[in-house]
């Protein structure tokens, strides 16, 4: 750790040196007391020029072998999705596991799962922005991209789960010649259309507005005229003038304000798909907050998973530091406890309501034939994140990675438990039944991950994966202003 003379508070640290605790500068206070200085958000003594190079590098180089391997795996899974969907459309819903009591199966589970994942990005970029959490700058770009891709994955499922998906457009209320056929505004499925499309559009706009200055940076660094032209067009001819920056900042703030309520509304409305029904286990008022917090929980887990890759494979350790990871682990633990609280509340209410149907369904949920799924859900979501009470575990990327995966497994099973156990035994025991995924269900679930990772890998190849301009704003000028490192200088000269 070195401390340049210019400022007593500016500290150059390496990723491994971070402790997660503030640096105590003895006697630096105005009256001679100690001052606690937060550890830097960017490590490795990076200069501003380093940032440009480190981040734009991935979009400028020929892809590495590692990327190609990852991309071909993702593409293979995407191929599985395409083949499965063609079979599904030709053969019919029969190839899936859905049946008479359990009319919704893996597709709705996957839909809610992916929508949930799509929550963290906008939360990080909008809510944390409004709360002036500066550490968000390292991760917000990738997290927002993740949101968009997750929403794209989620958006497939409500369409393909239809018996006649070719008529899905009937859900869009526009004056038409089919009667006119109008949608039923009583139906939560109609609300979903509005909630999800609004969320997707606002998230896309927000993400893209944030990208503008960085796209300009890529343009400025570009050498090939076509590349320059392309990125120039993408950046809407960003000039970097003060006016542009002023407008940009205002727009960003407004969009953050718009996006924040959406974070809460989308999953609230998705939860209405269940909460407005008459089925015990679905018909509960706790669902909106329960779903929102679960979504943030799973979204953060997915962000941790992706950031671990970004740190390891794309050399982003200096921008996405261990401190970032620890902060996310803390959020994961907190939301995990809220999720656990929601689970417990459901049980309490089932007992307290005195409803026989409600009481049965929760007993059946935990101890019936799908008790194993409930156990996976409860362990992964409510118990395992409790490990983050221990600092060494919070700061161990392997543990973080493993837990983030487990949390997403748990969150998938949460939706499995809600969808399947509520439906499989409802009012009349004569229609009770069981549900199991078929090979096509599994293929389409795996294929959705293929779509997600294909999009994500393309994203890291063509766009700045960290918000360059925002990261620069949280760097200590006393360090970042000085001349670029030798390697960077050489690169600039060669360019």
């Amino acid at each position, binding site marked *: 750790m070195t401390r340049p003379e210019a400022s007593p508070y500016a500290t150059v640290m390496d990723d491994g040196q971070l402790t997660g605790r503030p640096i105590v500068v003895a006697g630096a206070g105005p009256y001679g007391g100690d001052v606690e200085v937060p550890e830097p958000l960017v490590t490795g003594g990076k200069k501003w020029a380093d940032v440009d190079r480190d981040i734009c590098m991935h979009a400028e180089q020929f892809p590495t072998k590692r990327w190609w391997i990852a991309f071909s795996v993702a593409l293979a899974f995407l191929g599985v999705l395409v083949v499965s969907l063609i079979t599904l459309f*030709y053969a019919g819903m029969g190839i899936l596991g859905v049946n008479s*009591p359990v009319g919704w199966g893996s597709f709705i589970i996957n839909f809610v799962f992916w929508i949930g994942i799509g929550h963290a990005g906008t939360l990080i970029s909008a809510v944390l922005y409004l709360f002036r959490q500066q550490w968000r700058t390292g991760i917000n770009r990738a997290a927002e991209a993740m949101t968009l891709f997750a929403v794209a994955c989620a958006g497939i499922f409500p369409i393909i789960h239809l*018996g006649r998906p070719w008529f899905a457009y009937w859900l869009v209320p526009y004056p038409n010649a089919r009667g006119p*056929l109008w949608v039923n505004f009583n*139906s939560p499925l109609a609300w979903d259309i509005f909630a999800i499309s609004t969320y997707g559009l606002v998230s896309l706009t927000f993400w893209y507005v944030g990208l503008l200055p960085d796209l300009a940076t890529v343009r400025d660094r570009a050498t090939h005229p076509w590349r320059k032209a392309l990125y120039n067009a993408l950046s809407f001819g960003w000039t970097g003038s003060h006016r542009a920056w002023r407008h940009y900042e205002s727009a960003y703030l407004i969009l953050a304000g718009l996006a924040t309520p959406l974070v809460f509304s989308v999953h609230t409305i998705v939860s209405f798909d269940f909460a407005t*029904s008459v*089925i015990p286990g679905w018909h509960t008022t706790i669902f909106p907050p329960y779903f929102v917090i679960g979504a943030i929980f799973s979204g953060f887990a997915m962000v941790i998973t992706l950031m671990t890759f970004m740190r390891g494979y794309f050399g982003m350790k200096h921008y996405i530091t261990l401190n970032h990871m620890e902060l996310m682990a803390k959020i994961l633990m907190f939301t995990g406890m809220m999720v656990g609280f929601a689970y417990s509340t459901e049980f309490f209410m089932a007992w307290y309501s005195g409803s026989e149907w409600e009481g049965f369904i929760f007993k059946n949920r935990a101890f019936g034939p799908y008790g194993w799924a409930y156990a996976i859900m409860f362990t992964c979501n409510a118990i395992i994140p409790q490990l983050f009470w221990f600092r060494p575990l919070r700061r161990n990327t392997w543990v973080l990675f493993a837990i983030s995966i487990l949390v997403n497994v748990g969150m998938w099973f949460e939706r499995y438990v809600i969808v399947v156990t509520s439906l499989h035994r409802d009012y009349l*025991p*004569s229609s009770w039944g069981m549900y199991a995924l078929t090979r096509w269900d599994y293929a389409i679930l795996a294929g959705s991950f293929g779509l997600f990772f294909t999009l994500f890998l393309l994203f890291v190849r063509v766009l700045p994966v960290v918000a360059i301009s925002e990261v620069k704003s949280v760097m200590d000028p006393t360090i970042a202003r000085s001349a670029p490192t030798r390697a960077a200088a050489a690169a600039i000269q060669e360019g």
Partner: protein
Amino acid sequence: MNPNDTSARPDTPGVDRREFLRVSGALAAGGALLSAGCQVPQEATVPFHDMPENLVDGIGPARFFHTVIDGTPVAVKTREGRPVLITPRADDASGRGLTVRHQASLMDLYDPDRARGPVSVRRGGGALVESSWAGLSPDVVSRLKAAGPKAVLLTGPVASPAVADAIAGITGRTGARHVVWAPLEADAAPEAWKLAFGNARVARPRLEKADLIVGLGAEFMDRPGDGLERDFALRRSPDQADGVRMSRFVQFEGRLTLTGANADRRIRVRDSHLGRIAAALAHELIVVRKLGPLASDPEAGKALAAFAIDAVAVQAGLDARVLKAVADELAAAPGRSIVIAGGSACASASGPAIELAALLLNVTLGAIDAGLFEPAAAIDAVSGTGAALAALAADMLAGKVDLLILAGVNPVYDAPAFATASAGLSPATFTFADALARVGYVVSMNDRLDETSRIADVLLPASHPFECWSDAALPRGLFAIQQPVIQPLFDTRGLLDTLVEWAAGAGDPAAQAAVAAAAAALAKPPVPVTAAPAASPNPAWHYLRAGWAARLPAAPATPAFEAAWNELLRAGQWPAPAAIPVTADKTKADKPAAKPGKVPAATVPAIAPRALALLGAIAPAGGTAAGLELQLYPHFALADGRSGNNGWLNELPDPITRITWGGALSIAPRRFDEMKLANGDLVEVDAGHAKIIAPAYRHAGMHYDQVALPLGLGRVACGVIGDGIGPNAFPLRILAGGRLVSAGLSVSIRKAAGNEPLALAQGSEVIDRDRRPIVPATTLSAYEKNRTSGTEQEEGGRSIWPVHEYAKTRWAMAIDLSKCNGCGKCVIGCQAENNIPVVGRAGMLDRRPMSWMRIDRYYDAPKKDGRWDVEVWDGPLAVVEEPQTLFEPMLCQHCENAPCETVCPFVATMHSADGLNQQVYNRCVGTRYCANNCPFKVRRFNFWEYGKKQESAFFRWLVPRIRRAADLNTRAPMQMKNNPEVTVRSRGVMEKCSFCIQRIRAAGAQATRDGKTKEHFPDGAVVPACMEACPTGAITFGDVNNPGSRVASMAAHPRAMRLLDAVGVKPSISYLTKVRHDKA
């Protein structure tokens, strides 16, 4: 010049616009004609030469015909010349009842696996060769003449006088023998009655007149062809008019049957003990209590001496007080109580003794004197066919049969193994197939290449009863005409046609006359349709009319005769009530329904003492008989398996076991658990002479020492749909003492390797009605104290939805659970009316049934100390030894606040102005949200395309289930069964009960035509298919807003309960409490 003015353009060369249109129109029409001629295969249809005005396919009135299937009168509904629905005759006077097999015989008619024409089978190698009637039929005649007495005609029981005459014509001229084989005919009752009274005219009990019914293995609901279940239901409502009490039914049985499940009290006795139990009751009443005419009969006293109630009870493992209580009940109701035996349990070695004991009890209780049996001369019950078949098989094996003609029988599949006549031969038994191999020439007249036909020489396929003329003798002295309702679909002939032709060939004058008349009719030029009906070119028609000339009042060939004949065809029955003037000399058969009251005591003959000897065979041997015994019972839907290729029947759940597409070995729960079995685990059943492997089923209410297997499964040559379903249990039957024994067989069972999942139609079956009050049920004593007893449930809160306003009509249904016996005829009726596909075994295992209507069967959990014995929530109970069975028909409840309606984003399901919950298939995109949100789970989703074949061979290969779904539903000519009034649904849409909206709308259209749109629909204006099929009148449908309607009064009845009030859905269907008569 105006450029648009085309009229004045002299310079334009060639054609003008009109000319162009004319030419191109002609070209298009010609092209269409040519291409149609080139591409469309020629069909043998007769188009309307002059299309009647306003005739559109599927629109317009249906036609109804009266005819007979297997001796049971039915009404057939046809559309565009196709039969589309079979319903019971509302005015049938014969007392016969339809079975589900009769209803589903529509599918047999359109069975794609029927033989399409005569086939030369070339047994013993060589391929099948299609042949013709002209090529094969005359050959049979010459063979008949040549074989003389060495020819045998083997048929099922002949219910038709005309067929019997034709057979007599053949046998009388050629000396051929006629042998009858009825694989399921009950022998015990005819044997006992013959011994007791000298004739086998087993009288039909009149259950509607009895206050107390005691069943000894009775199965009148499981085998409902005689209509007893309808009579029984007449007395099962607790609100009887005129102070008549609800009847009470006590049943002794070993296997929980549908009949036993409807009993007020059920006492488990293994089949082999039933005779002793019955004799013990007789002993108690006759010897101990000195009741009835037999009390003074020393012979009876001597024969019954061995059956003291205490000793018998110990042997049967019963408490003697239980038997004494039943005896008390019987003794307290002389002249008002009836004892009935019969059923599978009486097919045991002691069957005749059971029947005799029942007879003794009925005589003692004065049931016969009091008119509790029909005095009318019944038809002689068929019996002894097992012995006849054994004798025939022995003759065949010995080479004494040169020509065997089979018609409507399949003994290779359903005959037992026969013992060789002389001892010392090896092997000691032989099968019917072995014997068949020794017959010179075998002619089969079955409808397909079944197990027997495929080892015959020729198959001359018989027509379906709907395709040919015949007649039938019915109970109560009635006769009926079997009239064709459609031209034969294939190159088949009616049995009577063939027999008449052969009889003519053999030299029978009546048959020769008929054949000559038919030939003459054929030679005549066709007559214009408008003229009087021409003589038929069909010999059977002439033969039949000639035979009926003796019965009809007018001489043949007179206009009066034609009128009477036409009236006969219209009425379908003779004597038809008030339709045909009945002359006194022709009908001696009195009409029992019209003559209630006492029959003079003198009509009851004394029981012959030699009959009492039957009891000697079942005298207690001391000690408890140990070991496991097997009962073979006819499959509820398939019976003897002749309709094995019928998808509707295979998919109809057994009313008790709820198994579809197959059957299983029923084992008592305790034994099942002791053997550590799971449902579907394979078990080997060893009866000594034969072994069979069958899946096991945990059958609540089975006697611990008894297991049971259904007969009629395991067909191997019935067709693509039904081959290889379940085990064939027929080889387990034995012939003993000239009778077929299929109950009380001593067997051992052991677990075999493997599991064959049972395609159960129901998820769980045990309910705790305190927690889940979903079936209203109570006891008579509770009901008499509180008329709403049994309908208690949590009340719903207020609704935030606006209430629906009904301008006039609101359709509703009421189902009286006290009358519903769970037989499932409504399910088949609904399936036929509404074009509901079958999903096959795989579909049932996937739990994707399509049936709009189902009968839920629940076991009411037993109570102990006011608490439930065990946790009810996790599937079947640990032990359900003696369940209380509840049946509940479940269909769309057409909720006032339908949860499906609010959640559909496409508005594909909506509330109609007359209270229906409508499903609009065109709008449905298939989110399945409505099905999830339906608390009754009555919505059905088309997971596959059932209505048409998947075109792509690749996807058929990739997903074999597509091929199977097509096999089950779309092979020609199966589509012909479809009711044109109902849409055939496509893949991906939801469907459900519509309250038969097509009938509602037709009634509405009729009301409009009649100018009665302002008035309420009267009762009976709309009868949905389920109500129409229900034999017991448990279902009532109508306009609940019409204050005078039956459904309105039932919906307002204290017994009425609308399910799941707490959910707030407000169903339109009211269930009336199931009341059990608990008062001894």
